[in-house]
């Protein structure tokens, strides 16, 4: 068998050569769509608001990909008119998706195209939290924080509400710190600012926000909101609270125990 014979070999009635051409065409279309998207973003910047630019670039990207995909179908011998006559593309897709495996397969493709999650992302799907280990064509594997591997069918991933903790470069967290009513809140805020400034990953911008949030039953409650890079977010969160407590106590500001004032009748 020569290489030429391999090209002429048929899979599901389609020649390997045609399949390779189809894959090549899709790759070229994706590259063209990305170039167009980048140029639209750079060209329209300063002329339109950011969300509008984002919508235009997304719309252009997917329109190019969909048109290119449909146009490329003729390479593997699928004619658009034929599909339309047979009931339309939508009908076929819905028909296929009614079967679980095909549904998972299509969901896997959409996951790869839309990319709501990526390998290494910290995510939450339903009640499962962890790191995405693998995104396969039929299933996605998540390693939970305690090291257990959870496998989700792609259809479940695609249709579930996903929280992706790594999709943005930075993340915010909040502490509630109570101080005594007799303590100076402004001084406490200054101390907290100073301690936060010393930590490399407490971001300078967006700047931490510290304010008196509540006059509680036993304490004046300060709210401390901190932004940190998403990939070190958890270590910063676990590190800073104790540092703040120690720094406040060193300056004579204490976190009070719950207390109640009782007035005795004469």
């Amino acid at each position, binding site marked *: 068998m020569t290489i030429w014979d391999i090209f002429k070999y048929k899979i599901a009635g389609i020649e390997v050569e045609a399949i390779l051409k189809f894959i090549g065409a899709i790759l070229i279309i994706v590259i063209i769509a990305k170039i167009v998207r980048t140029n639209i973003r750079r060209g329209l*910047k300063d002329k339109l608001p950011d969300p509008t630019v984002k919508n235009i670039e997304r719309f252009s990207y997917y329109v190019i990909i969909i048109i290119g995909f449909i146009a490329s179908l003729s390479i593997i011998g699928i004619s658009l008119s034929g599909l339309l006559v047979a009931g339309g593309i939508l009908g076929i897709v819905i028909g296929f998706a009614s079967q679980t495996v095909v549904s998972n397969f299509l969901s896997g493709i959409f996951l790869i195209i839309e990319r709501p999650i990526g390998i290494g992302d910290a995510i939450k799907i339903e009640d499962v939290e962890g790191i995405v280990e693998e995104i396969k064509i039929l299933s996605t594997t998540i390693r939970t924080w305690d090291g257990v591997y959870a496998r989700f069918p792609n259809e479940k991933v695609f249709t579930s509400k996903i929280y992706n903790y790594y999709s*943005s470069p930075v993340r915010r967290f909040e502490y509630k710190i109570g101080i005594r009513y007799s303590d100076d809140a402004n001084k406490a805020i200054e101390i907290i600012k100073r301690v936060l400034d010393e930590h*490399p*990953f407490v971001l*300078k911008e*967006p700047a931490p926000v510290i304010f008196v949030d509540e006059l509680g039953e036993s304490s004046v409650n300060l709210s401390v909101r901190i932004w940190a*890079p998403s*990939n070190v977010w958890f270590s910063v969160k676990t590190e800073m609270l104790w540092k703040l407590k120690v720094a406040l106590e060193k300056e004579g500001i204490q976190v009070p125990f719950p207390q109640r004032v009782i007035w005795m009748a004469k």
Partner: protein
Amino acid sequence: MAINSGRQIKMFGVYGLNLNIEKGGVKIEVSGGGREKNYFRKAGDEVIEKKIYANNGEIIISPVPPVNLPIHASNHLMIEFDKSIFVEPGVEEKIFIKFPVEIGVFLSDEKDIEPLDIFTKTKLKYTLYGRPEDGFVCRWWRSEIYKEIPNVDELYEGIMELKIKNSYSEWTEINKIVFNTLTMKIFYKNHAYCSANLEIIKKSMGKTSFNEKVEGMNEAIDLYLAKSRKLGISLAKEIGREFFMERGFK
């Protein structure tokens, strides 16, 4: 043993596997006879000790892009100016600013370069360039603007020669500049040195890049090339050499 002796002690350079340098609160020592060596480094309160087993080889002390500490969490450096710069359309101007120095200690032989230690005397602080949903985490530094080459402590700051060109049709205000440190070309002699460019393309967009050559200076070790050498790839050459500041100058 004391290789770096004399009136002017320099930190950056190439040394044998026995060295003892002490300068500006930093002490680097490689000691021990035979194959087993002891590496000792003290900078401020931080002390690092490691073992080296080697017959030959060299120690290279070189400035590296300032994004490796306390852990590598970013590939971008933001330098905020102490004063705003306004640039007229069509104007090209050269200024000097300072950038933070991280010092890399490398083990080297004919075939390989391996990072042994990285430290800094500078304050580490990171910031975000752009919006929380799609911005860039950057190492942050503030610098004054100089017309001539300023004096620096080589262990603390390096000098960046920055050519600013306004190719846009309007006046532009600049408060900060952002670089991709994967493409950062650092040189050294008495101190770390970079030659960089900023071209203003739009009111709030520009591109920054580093120049490949600086006359009369030694080329610093390219940390990313050193790390990727074993894989046989050049990360820095695979990516674009320009960084697009698409999120403005303020």
